[in-house]
């Protein structure tokens, strides 16, 4: 895997206005990989992207591209192109000229320019829009122009900064599929920044979760979802119930006033931990057979499932189930040992 | 880093160019000597003479009277005009706006002589009346251009909402529309006031020797070779303007901050 690494950030830190906004990041990105930087706003994901694009110079650390240090390389000399957050299309140029822009800079002959722009517009399904002005395009169409414009120079890496943020839900889903298709057909690396966990899980080969300028966890979408490294990741990636617990010994944890078997080990004895349980992993059973029981406070229909809030042992538990229970009724709940995720408490900031 | 150093130098150079003449004026306002070239010692003599110069004081009061009256008239006329023009259909609106742009684009000297010809033909003798008419004429377009965008930004439904909630059309107009466009009206008023204070060229053609405004007096003083009171006058004007501008900017910055806080 290592010979495949295209971009490496080594110990990269960034200060802005005297404040450290990126803390010594180490990150390798492989060739032809779809990597997503995921995190809430202000987590440093866009800064990381801009370092790779060449718009932010790291205060400390090194950036390598294909084995070469590129810290001081200006953006226009990098084999990387960016799809900007609000597209940043050139308002004085039409669709064709926007896409053509990069080719013109590289003095590509006119005939070739025309065929390449045509191909590219076909790739992003914008055939026939060549002479439209930018302000007469819908958000989705502008998005496609931005992608075509960034891809025309055949970059080895495409950086995408929340490219779908301004689109409505349905269009966003369509574009997710389309971006994945484009990435696979062109066989280039995509580095994708988003705060939308669902987007990250659907599209990526690898997800990098960031918070407050640090990388919290990286791995395949499955890993991240099933084995979150800490309560923050668990909460950020999908909904979770997070409660305080005490690890009595390996494979035995206490929370909600009783002991549960679990599959985690390697904690200190009597260590205070976070216990994370996904809402769909709590089964509702008759209150006598449940491991613990509580009062149903609310039931909301969510389309595929019902979302219930159950008050038990001092916590409000969120439960997803295909069956609705009566509000105000007592229900029992049970959890399988391998659905209980134990995590070290995060240090308080 | 090198780049920002270079751009700071450039800004500094332009600012130097803009401010050297003003600094020179202020420094020489404290010069005891009458001649511009020689520095003989610090003195407040010219300030004293300035305040005893009947012509200057008279023209200052002329200027203020004319500016206040014409700014108020222009604001009333312009605000009503903006609302009326805003209500027009496309074609009529663009015609009215072209008429509005005209005095702004037309060279002042042409406007000055054309008004002078009009007054001469109608036999109106030059004086306060002609000055005020001329000032209202060139100030009103600025009021319209300040109020118009506010009308356009306004949500058209707020007037209907006010009616819906029980306002009479008059009440709705005064309680909803006017407050909404007030910032535009005020900046139009301020702009008119300052343009009127500052105008030289048009006033030059439509005033008489008894109704001279300050800029005209200044012009006749510069025609005489030596008139050090001008320096003192400049210094005072500069300080007044500086204080006003700083106050406005501090106020603006504070408001912006408050707004940002509100969004946070």
């Amino acid at each position, binding site marked *: 895997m290592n010979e495949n690494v295209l971009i490496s950030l080594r110990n990269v830190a960034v200060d802005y206005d005297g404040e450290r906004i990126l803390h010594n990041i180490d990150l390798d990105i492989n060739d032809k990989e779809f990597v997503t930087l995921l995190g809430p706003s202000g987590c440093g994901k866009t800064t990381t992207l801009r370092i790779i694009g060449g718009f932010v110079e790291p205060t400390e650390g090194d950036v390598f591209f294909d084995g070469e240090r590129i810290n001081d390389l200006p953006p*226009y000399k990098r084999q990387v192109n960016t799809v900007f957050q609000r597209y940043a299309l050139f308002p004085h140029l039409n669709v064709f000229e926007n896409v053509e822009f990069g080719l013109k800079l590289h003095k590509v002959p006119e005939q070739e320019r025309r065929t390449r722009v045509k191909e590219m517009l076909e790739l992003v399904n914008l055939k026939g829009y060549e002479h439209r002005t930018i302000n007469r395009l819908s958000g989705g169409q502008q998005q496609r122009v931005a992608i075509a414009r960034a891809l025309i120079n055949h970059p080895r890496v495409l950086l995408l900064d929340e490219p779908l943020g301004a689109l409505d839900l349905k269009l966003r889903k369509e574009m997710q599929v389309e971006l994945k298709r484009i990435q696979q057909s062109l066989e280039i690396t995509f580095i994708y920044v988003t705060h939308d966990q669902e987007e990250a899980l659907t599209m990526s080969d690898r997800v990098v979760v960031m918070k407050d300028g640090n990388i919290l966890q990286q791995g395949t979408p499955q890993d991240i979802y099933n084995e979150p490294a800490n309560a923050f990741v668990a909460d950020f990636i999908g909904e979770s119930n997070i409660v305080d617990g005490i690890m009595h010994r390996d494979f035995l944890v206490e929370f909600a006033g009783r002991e549960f078997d679990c599959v985690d080990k390697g904690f200190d004895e009597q260590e205070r931990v976070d216990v994370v349980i996904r809402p769909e992993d709590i089964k509702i059973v008759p209150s006598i057979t449940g491991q613990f029981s509580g009062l149903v406070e609310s039931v909301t229909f969510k389309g595929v499932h019902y979302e219930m809030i159950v008050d038990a042992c001092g916590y409000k538990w969120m439960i997803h189930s295909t069956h609705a229970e009566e509000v105000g009724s007592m229900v029992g709940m049970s959890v399988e040992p391998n659905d209980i995720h134990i995590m070290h408490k995060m240090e308080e900031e | 880093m090198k780049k920002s150093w270079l751009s700071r130098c450039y800004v500094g150079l332009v600012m130097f160019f803009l401010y050297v003449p003003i600094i020179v004026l202020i420094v020489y306002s404290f010069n005891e000597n009458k001649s511009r070239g020689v520095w003989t010692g610090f003195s407040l003599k010219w300030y004293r003479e300035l305040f005893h110069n009947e012509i200057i004081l008279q023209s200052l009061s002329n200027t203020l009277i004319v500016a206040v009256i014409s700014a108020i008239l222009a604001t009333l006329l312009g605000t009503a005009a903006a609302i009326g023009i805003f209500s027009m259909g496309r074609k009529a609106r663009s015609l009215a706006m072209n008429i509005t742009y005209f005095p702004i684009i037309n060279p002042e000297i042409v406007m000055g002589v054309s008004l002078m010809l009009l007054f001469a033909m109608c036999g109106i003798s030059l004086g306060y009346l002609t000055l005020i008419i001329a000032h209202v004429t060139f100030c009103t377009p600025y009021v319209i*251009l300040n109020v118009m965008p506010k009308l356009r930004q306004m949500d058209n439904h707020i007037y209907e909402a006010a009616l819906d909630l029980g306002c009479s059309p008059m009440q709705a107009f005064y309680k909803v529309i006017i407050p909404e466009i007030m910032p535009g009206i005020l900046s139009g008023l301020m702009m008119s006031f300052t343009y009127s204070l500052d105008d030289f060229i048009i006033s030059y053609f439509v005033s008489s020797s008894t109704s001279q405004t300050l800029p005209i007096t200044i012009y006749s003083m510069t025609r005489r070779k030596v008139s050090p009171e001008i320096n003192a006058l400049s210094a005072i004007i500069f300080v007044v303007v500086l204080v006003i501008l700083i106050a406005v900017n501090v106020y603006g910055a504070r408001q912006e901050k408050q707004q940002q806080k509100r969004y946070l």
Partner: protein
Amino acid sequence: MFKNRAVSAPYLVWSAIFVIIPLGLVAYYALTTRSGEFTLDNLARVGQYAPVIMSSILLSIIATIISLIVAYPLAFIMSRASGNTQRTYMMLIMLPMWMNFLLRTYSWMTILERNGLINRFLELFGIGPLTMINTPGAVVLGMIYNYLPFMILPLYTTMLKIEHHTIEAAQDLGATPWQVLSRVIIPLSMPGVTTGITMVFVPCISTFAISRMLGGGSSMLIGDLIELQFLGNTYNPNLGAAISMVLMVIILICMAMMNMFDDGEDKEAMLL
């Protein structure tokens, strides 16, 4: 309805009486003799003053071009500065404009004259004295000094609208700093350039005080010529009106040329 066209009537009447009729009067005077008969003599006589008109145009063009060259980088630097810095720069540029231009021009007399500041300074090095005042150069300097802010402000306003992302996008696609300037920033700031040119050229070509104060008798401009016909010794409003007509035509030509470069959007915002 608060929408009421009638409330604009007083303004429209006012404009008709004090803007449109006076212009008609200018045209009338330009085309008649003193006794009121139709003639083209006045316009023909303007031809005598062709050298004055040409030198007015030339000096104004020079002043406009230098203003553009000086203002362009400044406006760009301003538009990229942080909010507070921008506010400060704006204030520093507006501040001199609030002082009457006669005062500012008067100050240049102090600086440029024969025993003025520059010559006294040069004297220390044994140079001079140079003749600076009462030259066309001094007039151009006065024009630039007085109207430079009119160039900076519209440029700054259009450049503010250029998103930083747009510049980054160009760099990202491989544009060198020079290419970013020529292919993105200049095309996008064209509306500001044309407005700025108009806003500097028009007052330059029609000024009379600046040339009188800094040019002495050396360079008479169109404005001086008009003023002389109305208030000077050679009282001749018919000829003055004819010259005014010519001045307006020159300005119309200038504006038409500027309009060819952009479609005239946002004119309103620019003028304020």
